[in-house]
């Protein structure tokens, strides 16, 4: 699936988008898998309360299922307007 990063999440991980092959069942599983992979992920995902996640461009939760999801995005709380 495509995984996107925005704002300081993008800066900490060091790229805006990557393709990830994963068997993770939920967003939390994916976060754990990435955090275990490299320090930059662990740093970006250290405090989930400071993060938001969107599945296929809809805001979602960290315990949501990834079944059928093509695009996951991680980012800080939004500051539009």
């Amino acid at each position, binding site marked *: 699936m495509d995984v996107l990063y925005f704002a300081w999440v993008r800066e900490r991980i060091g790229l805006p988008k990557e393709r990830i092959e994963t068997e993770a069942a939920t967003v939390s599983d994916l976060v754990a898998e990435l955090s275990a992979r490299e320090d930059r992920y662990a740093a970006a995902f250290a405090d989930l309360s400071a993060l938001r996640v969107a599945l296929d461009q809809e*805001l979602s939760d960290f315990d949501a299922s990834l079944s059928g999801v093509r695009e996951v995005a991680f980012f800080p709380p939004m*500051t539009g307007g």
Partner: protein
Amino acid sequence: MRIVVQEQEFDLGAEANAFAAGDNGNGAIVTFTGVVRDLASGNLDVMEIEHYPGMTERALTKIAEDAQVRWSLGDVLVIHRYGRLAPGDRIMMVATAAPHRKDAFEAAEYLMDYLKSRAPFWKKEITSGGADWVAAKDEDEDALARW
């Protein structure tokens, strides 16, 4: 309904006039315009706005559609810029037209409250001293509770 997400600047006056040129059933037109404020220290060079192409348009469309369900509105406009802006530049505007002023005001405030916390934009303030992501404010999240 018109949703615009663009990098280039927009003309508030031209947009307001075009929006207000609609039908005569709407006695009340409200606009809100957001402008890049300088920092208290007065040294903001650039406000950089990042967004999530695709999701941004979807989120703004949903917010505008929800407003049209909740209030009796003749029309809704949302314009939001991304990219590099300077102090004094206009970031975004919303406009609402309704038969009654209460609906036009409430819907505009609703659009702003949701747009602040639910549309995927992120602001970064760049000064000669460095760059900082703007933190989301609790009061903006709390503002959603009233709707």
